């Protein structure tokens, strides 16, 4: 099926890119790896006047160390991330997560920036025109009410990106650049929690870098993803965990994040709190996972019922914590 017609922009530098985003503000669809945007174009979920490809932008790929931080350019592919020694050494869960996304040939194209900034998804929304035209326009599509929960005024589309929960667990920052300047926000702040407009990035902003502070001392991280098949699929439940030990052998920093449980990845503060200040042997993964379960939202808008997916949040969160604890023992 042919894509809808558009005008093509191919910036060579980040400066050019943000100038174009400013000039054509609000009418540009960005293609990084193309694995999200091209599908949305083909389904006519969006019909921007311009499509801008980032593939030719100088300096948009690469992983380097900069003063206590690992800096990943937003156009770095998931394959590159999966193969990076530097990332594996300090941010192992990122390698795990990258390797679980879709399929090998998608990972060759998909970028960390694109994966992070993917739109939320829902069985009722992510359809071709043929299927969507047979029902009232849903809330996310610009209509009056939700189709998944008939008549609801809130959108429950799901954020299913694999990289975001892990990046949040590592306290990563996103660098957003526009024609006027740059700002940095915690990755968690990129998400609004509103399914109809899930991202807080502005129309004239470009995500250029992800910056991760290097963890110190003994630490471990993990990512667990649940899906029906052993590949290809988006997560139906997912969780990232980061734990580090103080010199006294007590967990001094814990992060527990869940994905695919609402319109935004969710840092489960209560769960992390339960894991903080205790020795690893005393940590209670079940209790932490229970907190995750309580905060998770899941309805019948993806494969498999919402009630099941909510139960699975607890399972993947517990498994992520257990894996991180095991990692600490080996650290």
């Amino acid at each position: 099926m042919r894509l809808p017609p558009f005008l093509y922009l191919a910036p060579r530098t980040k400066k050019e890119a943000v100038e174009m985003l400013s000039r054509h503000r609000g009418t540009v669809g960005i293609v990084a790896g193309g694995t999200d945007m091209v599908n949305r174009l083909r389904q006519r979920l969006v019909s921007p006047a311009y499509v801008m490809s980032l593939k030719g932008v100088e300096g948009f790929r690469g992983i380097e160390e900069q003063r206590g931080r690992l800096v990943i350019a937003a156009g770095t592919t998931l394959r590159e991330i999966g193969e990076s020694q530097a990332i594996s050494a300090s941010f192992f869960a990122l390698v795990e997560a990258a390797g679980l996304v879709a399929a090998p040939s998608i990972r060759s194209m998909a970028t960390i920036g694109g994966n992070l900034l993917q739109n939320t998804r829902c069985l009722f929304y992510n359809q071709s025109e043929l299927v969507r035209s047979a029902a009232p326009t849903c809330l996310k599509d610009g209509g009056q009410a939700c189709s998944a929960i008939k008549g609801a005024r809130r959108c429950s589309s799901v954020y299913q990106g694999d990289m975001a929960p892990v990046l949040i667990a590592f306290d990563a920052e996103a660098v957003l650049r526009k024609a006027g300047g740059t700002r940095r926000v915690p990755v968690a702040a990129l998400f609004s929690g509103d399914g109809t407009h899930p991202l807080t990035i502005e129309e004239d902003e470009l995500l250029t870098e992800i910056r991760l502070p290097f963890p110190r001392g003994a630490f471990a991280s993990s990512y667990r993803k649940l899906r029906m098949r052993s590949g290809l699929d988006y997560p139906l439940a997912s969780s990232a965990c980061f734990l580090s030990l103080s010199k006294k052998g007590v967990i001094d920093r814990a992060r527990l994040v869940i994905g695919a449980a609402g319109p935004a990845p969710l840092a489960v503060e209560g769960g992390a709190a339960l894991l903080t200040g205790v020795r690893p042997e005393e940590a209670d993964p079940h209790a932490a996972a229970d907190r995750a379960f309580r905060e998770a939202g899941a309805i019948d808008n993806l494969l498999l019922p919402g009630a099941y997916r909510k139960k699975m949040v607890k399972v993947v969160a517990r498994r992520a914590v257990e894996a991180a604890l095991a990692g600490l023992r080996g650290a």
Partner: protein
Amino acid sequence: MEKKTISLSVNGQVFSVSTYVHKTLLEVLREDLGLTGAKESCGEGACGSCTVLLDGLPVRSCLLLAVEAEGRAILTIEGLASGPRLHPIQEAFVEHHAIQCGFCTPGMILTAKALLDDTPHPTEKEIRRALSGNICRCTGYTKIVEAIKAASRGEP
């Protein structure tokens, strides 16, 4: 509708193509260059039938705009055999009955090539993982895996 003239390097040859910018690489290969080996089976980058190698890496040509592929080396299934001589992986697929209807085959073979170029002696698990993005409805994958194992051993 915007058109651009681009230069595509496909199977070692350079083609000058005038194309609408909203056409995918898959569409340009099939419609403008007559290279129909890459197929559209799903239209959403899920099935792998459109797989081509881009600078040696397997990519979904249905998710790439043709204009984005300028300056990259593209390998399609048509570029694998040397005249009448099949590439060893093609030979292995034929010998081991890894082909039934054949629709997924070009994508499958190119994915296998990328795997063996990267990992010359993969385990079965590595093979299946490498193929996890190529969907076959006919074979159940058993003989595809056998063919790739055979090719990795240098056998037909």
